[in-house]
């Protein structure tokens, strides 16, 4: 049995030559061999999306890809989303909309959002929901996450004009406007 296979993979724009065990996943190699711990290990069955990375331009669950399968491929993790020291539009929108709570799911959410807007620059709310359906947020910050993606897709839309789910309220909106508001805006 061969213990390690040589692979060539481009990770966040940088070519890497690695030797990987055939039973190690792309997620394990990114985290343990390359120290890219932005992609999270969580369910390991393709349910949660915390491990989402882009492989050849498509978002995939890196816990369900063997590292050897990525040979010759182009991988973008959340660490590669910002460029030239500037956050991507989506990352900035996540900040602006208070979309990160504990933050655990956010790397995966951001990679899926980048993949979505790359193929569909102006998605409807429903398309954003579907595009991010494979990314679970245990803090249940879905409303802010969806708003952030819609805002990133349409940066010129006046604040507050993005489609909302009925009854939804975003962090930073006027708490006095809703009688049940108990949390001060951050």
């Amino acid at each position: 049995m061969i213990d390690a296979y040589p692979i060539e993979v481009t990770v966040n724009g940088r070519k890497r030559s690695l030797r990987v065990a055939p039973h190690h996943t792309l997620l394990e190699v990114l985290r343990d061999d390359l120290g890219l711990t932005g992609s999270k290990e969580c369910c390991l069955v393709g349910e949660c999306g915390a491990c989402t990375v882009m492989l050849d331009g498509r978002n995939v669950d890196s816990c369900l890809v063997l590292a050897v399968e990525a040979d010759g491929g182009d991988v973008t993790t959340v660490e590669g989303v910002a460029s030239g020291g500037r956050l991507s539009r989506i990352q900035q929108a996540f900040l602006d909309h208070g979309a990160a709570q504990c933050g655990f799911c956010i790397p995966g959410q951001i990679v899926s959002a980048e993949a979505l807007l790359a193929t569909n620059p102006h998605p409807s709310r429903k398309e954003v929901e579907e595009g991010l359906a494979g990314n679970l947020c245990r803090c249940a910050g879905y409303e802010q996450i969806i708003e952030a993606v819609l805002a990133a897709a349409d940066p010129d839309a006046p604040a507050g004009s993005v489609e909302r789910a009925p009854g939804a309220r975003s962090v930073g909106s006027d708490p006095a406007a809703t009688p049940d508001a108990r949390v001060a805006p951050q």
Partner: protein
Amino acid sequence: MRPFTYERPATLAAAIGILEARGTEAIALAGGTDLIISLRDGSVTPEVVVDVKAIEDLGATIRVDRDQLVIGARVVMEDIARDPRVRRDFIALAEAAAVVGSVQIRNRATLAGNICNASPAADTAPALLIYGAQVVAVGPGGTRRISIDDFFLGPGVCALAPGELVTEIELPLPAQPRGAVHVRRTRRRGHDLASVTLACAVLGDGSVRLSYGSVGPRPLLVTAEATVLADAGASAEAWSASLEPLLAAASPSARSMRASPEYRLAMLRVLALRALDTARRRLAEGAAA
């Protein structure tokens, strides 16, 4: 994960050679969205994993070949769900492919892999059954075509012989007007395995093809000629009465965690009636088939 040897043959002959030589020690890897879970939980313990994604002969495209739409074994669900020809002529398949897992799963999972797993709950199976798909398999004995209805044998068991690989799935282009749809019932909104998954087609000649999965050991196909189920003007009572015998073959397991047999059978009726309604409307509108 238990260690294994990894092979990535570039030709069909090489892949078949390895699969035949290693027999049950070898397993084919396509999208991996099911296999890697099984490798990790130890329910599958191969000595060698044969990655088929570098095999040029396994089509990576959807193409029209004479009177058929041919889906290559390397085509992923997301590309099937979005393909305009699939959406126009095989809408139930596009709809089924669009609900398999999440985008991340659909970007990896292949239709060929989905049918080879032969899960009773596979969402694409009922759609392939109503459209009369043929599975093209190549193995040590050459090439053969297997009707999709003969392909599913039981839970996790398909008709592939040792050393055989699915290379393509062929769908006959519609010969007459048709309205079709895929519907499913899941425990929760969002991605989940189906408690009932169903597709139906109402054809211009007044016949109906209905297929359902997750209510027995394998997905089933039933058909009816000149049935009131195709008649938009019939009464709800007449529809229910005609539907009943078509659902008689359903035999949901009491051991499944997802839903009780009673619930599945009740939902099967509801979904079948709704699906027939949509299929009749689509036929009348002459839209997607």
